[in-house]
């Protein structure tokens, strides 16, 4: 199926939705590039990161730890913990990448919250493929162009603190995370984790306190997972993908969490 055939499978409304998410992500990408360079990184760092990692939440996390003078190993660890959810996404949308190894190898790189949320909105195999590839490629191009422009902007703007850009990074995270905190147990875990991280910050190297927050996850959420495991498997398909593999809470939380509209949140 060629590009034209794929776009032909999608109605105007869907293409508009994809366009809106592309624009919103471009704004985030612009701020990522500007914050990175404004914070003192060489221009190639945000650009290389965006092309190679292509996962916005982890890019902001790793960059924040590096800019704070943290251990690069902690930056990598935080980024990988955030991106572990992509494992679940890969299982949920595996069919949409298409047959053949090269499609799987290329398609894997454009698996994001957004492209998966669009993909899971349909049950029809051809439409799922079209949704995945059209949204994924559009987001990849927009994100990387925006980050490069933002990086150049960062070289022009000298004092990013005077513009309040240092508040933009936590604000981006808030826009991503607040809509996902729907469940009480998860809110408690997030609060306890944040308290642990803040309390540990004066004593531990940058990046490590954030990882410490995961302890709260295990303590607070163990009962929740056990409960869900018990009643989960019999209840059949949840969410728009019906019985598609692996549409559990990772997807539910992120899929509904998008601050811009129909798609997922944490890219």
């Amino acid at each position: 199926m060629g590009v034209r055939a794929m776009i032909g499978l999608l109605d105007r409304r869907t293409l508009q939705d994809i366009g809106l998410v592309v624009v919103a992500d471009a704004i985030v990408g612009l701020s990522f590039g500007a914050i990175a360079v404004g914070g003192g990184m060489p221009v190639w760092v945000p650009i290389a990161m965006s092309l190679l990692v292509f996962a916005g939440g982890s890019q902001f996390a790793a960059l924040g730890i590096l800019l704070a003078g943290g251990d690069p190993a902690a930056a990598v660890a935080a980024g990988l913990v955030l991106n572990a959810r992509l494992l679940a996404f890969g299982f949920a949308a595996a069919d949409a990448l298409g047959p053949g190894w090269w499609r799987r190898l290329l398609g894997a790189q454009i698996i994001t919250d957004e492209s998966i949320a669009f993909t899971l909105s349909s049950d029809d195999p051809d439409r799922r493929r079209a949704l995945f590839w059209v949204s994924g490629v559009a987001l990849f191009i927009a994100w990387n162009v925006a980050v490069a422009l933002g990086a150049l902007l960062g070289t022009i703007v000298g004092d990013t603190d005077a513009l309040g850009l240092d508040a933009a990074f936590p604000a981006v995270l808030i826009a991503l995370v607040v809509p996902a905190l729907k469940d009480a147990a998860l809110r408690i875990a997030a609060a306890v984790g944040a308290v642990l991280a803040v309390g540990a910050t004066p004593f531990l190297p940058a990046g490590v306190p954030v990882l410490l927050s995961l302890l709260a996850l295990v303590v607070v959420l163990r009962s929740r997972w056990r409960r869900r495991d018990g009643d989960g498997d019999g209840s059949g398909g949840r969410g728009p993908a019906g019985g598609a593999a692996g549409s559990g809470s990772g997807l539910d939380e992120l899929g509904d969490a998008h601050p811009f509209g129909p798609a997922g949140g944490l890219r």
Partner: protein
Amino acid sequence: MSAMALLLPILILAVGTYAFRLVGPAVHGRVRLPRFVDDLLGDGAIVLLSALTVTSAVFEAGQFAGWARPIGVAVAVALAIVKAPFPVIVVSAALVTALLRLIFPGLDG
């Protein structure tokens, strides 16, 4: 930091992230992830992001960052709760922080 000291963490993060993405398509969805693992991955991302949000709002290189930034971020929280559009949330936080610094230069200590 030297170029190599920056490139190496980027490459490791990139390779690890790509590996997470590729497993599902590589087995072509034939295997299902246990529900427990699926929940753990989603919840872990959100708890970690919440902690990162708070620490990056309050600290700068291990020290208190001053009041302008956390106040700007608090505005972002309020706007996110009332479901303001994404660009509004981010621009408002930056704008409030920048204005506070302009009007009250002593605020950041």
